[in-house]
Every structure is written in C-alpha cells, then in structure tokens.
C-alpha cells in the first residue's frame, strides 16, 4: 500500500529541495566573506567601484565559497553525523545524496571561475578557485582532522575573499591586498576558538583536534586573547602602509579595543561564560572593520 502525499506537501517539496541546496552553500558564513570582498573592492577603487563589477564579483565569490562549502558537506558527512550541531545538515540527514552534493560543489566552483573570468579577470577567478582549494584540501581534508593548528593555517582559505575583491578592481594583488588578507587570517583563530569553546564536546565526540579539545579550555582562552591582540596590531597596518587614513585608524582601534576587552573577560572567566559574546562580537567586528575601510576610502 502506498501513501499519497497531500497537495501542499507536493508543492512544498521542490522548495525544500531548493532550500537544502542553498543550505549546502552555508549562506550565512558567505555573507560575511562577501562583506570583506566588497570592502576590499571599495578600498582598491578608493571610492565606489563599478556597480556591475561589484555585483558579478559578489555572485562569483558566492559561487566559489558556496562550492567549497558544498564539497565540505560531502567530505565531512562522517563527522557531521557525530556532532549535534550538524546532524540536520542536508547530506548527513540523507536529504541530499553525497554524490550530488559533491557534483553541486564542483559545478558551483566551475561556474564561479567562468563568471569571474568574464566579469573581472583570470587572476580573480584563479584566486577564488585557490580559496576553494585551500578550504577543501588544506583545511577540510587535511588539517581539520589531523592538527591543532587546523583553523590557524586552514583558516587562510577564509582570508582569500579580500584578495578576490582587490584583484577584481586592480587586476593584481599588492601589499594592500595582503594586509586585508592578514586581517581576516589573524581574526579567524580567536573567532573560531570562541565557538569551539562552546562546541568542545561536539568536537571531542567527532574526534576533531580543535584547540580546546587538545590543549584544554584555559590554554584556548589564553590563545584567544593573544591572537586578538595580534589581530588588532595587524588591523592597524593598512594605516602604516599609507593605504588607509585616520578615520579607519580610529575605527580599527575602537573596534579592536572592544574585542580585546571581551577576550580578556573570557580569559579571566573561570568558565566559558564570555565565549558566546566574544564569538558574536567577532562577527560584528569583521564586518565593521571592512565598513570602516569603505568609509575611509569614500
């Protein structure tokens, strides 16, 4: 005997499938990456970049990062099933077949290369693909499962979007572009470890050697504070190089001071009570520091 689906259920199914494929791209994470891409474009242009170039670079950037994330869902389906936070993901829950997720990710990556080559230049497309390769190869396949430095070195993948934005406008990646890369590179460990403190049991259950699992909570909180101070120092370098001015400097110092205070409160906390605030603020920090760059460039 078969059970007939209700008409509303049939109508809802294509939307649910579409929703699952969108979920494979991790849109919330990408939105922050695209802020860094756009910020870099405004800084490179020293004003407002061409609207079409901005739009197509955002689309191409989304496709590349989305492709990387979809492939991540395919590769990590074994450990996603052992973490409470990720058991409802489309692949691990069986709603999207693993092979389809992989094909979808590869297709998005290829499409991003096409879009960015046509709309910007080959360097931009190559950098986007480099970001995808770093995320899948260096982070997901290698370091995430084998090293306590997984998020430090593997996190370089998430720092590529400003290079993509800069290259789209200028056709090259000089010191200024690498300074923006560095801000995201040094921001990633304190940001991610604040989250890892909250999810420590999940990572331990999945056998992922995140810092709190391997070195303990106290050492993680100490490193979050140290990396945050390094990151604030690095965030000032665009002023030292002459790329940004006093408006950006004031913004970077104020935003950075708040981040350091939160990291210090977390370090002094006997528990992990400040980890959630530190994590949420880190998201706001990254978006706002690139906004400060845009305001300074305007």
């Amino acid at each position: 005997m078969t059970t007939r689906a209700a008409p509303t259920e049939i109508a809802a199914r294509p939307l649910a499938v579409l929703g699952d494929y969108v979920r494979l791209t991790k849109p919330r994470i990408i939105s922050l990456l695209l802020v860094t891409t756009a910020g870099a474009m405004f800084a490179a242009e020293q004003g407002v970049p061409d609207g079409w170039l901005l739009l197509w670079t955002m689309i191409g950037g989304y496709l590349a990062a989305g492709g990387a994330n979809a492939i991540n869902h395919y590769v990590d389906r074994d450990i996603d099933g052992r973490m409470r936070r990720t058991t409802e993901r489309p692949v691990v829950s069986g709603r999207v077949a693993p092979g389809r997720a992989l094909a979808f990710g590869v297709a998005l990556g290829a499409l991003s290369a096409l879009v960015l080559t046509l709309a910007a230049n080959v360097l931009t497309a190559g950098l986007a693909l480099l970001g995808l390769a770093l995320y899948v190869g260096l982070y997901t396949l290698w370091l995430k499962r084998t090293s306590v430095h997984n998020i430090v070195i593997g996190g370089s993948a998430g720092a590529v979007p400003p290079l993509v934005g800069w290259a789209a406008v200028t056709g090259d990646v000089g010191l200024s572009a690498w300074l923006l890369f560095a801000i995201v590179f040094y921001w990633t460990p304190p940001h991610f470890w604040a989250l890892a403190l909250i999810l420590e049991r999940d990572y331990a259950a999945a056998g992922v050697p995140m810092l709190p699992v391997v070195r303990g909570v106290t050492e993680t909180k100490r490193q979050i504070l140290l990396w945050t101070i390094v990151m604030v120092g690095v965030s000032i370098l665009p002023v030292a190089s002459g790329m940004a001015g006093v408006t950006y400097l004031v913004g970077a110092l104020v935003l950075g001071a708040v981040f350091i205070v939160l990291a210090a409160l977390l370090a002094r906390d006997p528990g992990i009570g400040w980890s959630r605030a530190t994590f949420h603020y880190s998201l706001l920090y990254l978006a706002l520091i690139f906004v400060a760059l845009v305001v300074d460039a305007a």
Partner: protein
Amino acid sequence: MTLRTFALVLAAVLAIPAMLPLLRAPRGEGAPRTVWLSLDGLWTVVPVVFLIALIAFAAAA
C-alpha cells in the same frame, strides 16, 4: 611623528609581544614535547614569519 609612523609603531608594539608567547612550547594536557621537530612546528612559525613580513613591507611602503 607622522600618522603612518605612529600606526607602524603601535602595530608592532601590539602584535609582536603578543605573538612571541605563541612561539613557546604548548602547555596543557596532551601537548606534544617535540613540537619544534614536527610539522606542528612549521605551522607555529608560519603566522610569526607572516607577521614580521607584513610589518617590514608596511614600513617599506
């Protein structure tokens, strides 16, 4: 002192002293003793070398 010099000094004063403790052998349960002879040693040094290069290039710009 120009804005650029001020920013360079401030960046170095903040970043370098905070980076140095991260070079020390890791503490805590499960910390490897031979970290410097392993791939982990390389991963520890990469952010430090990158930081020094960034400061040097920013100063030279």
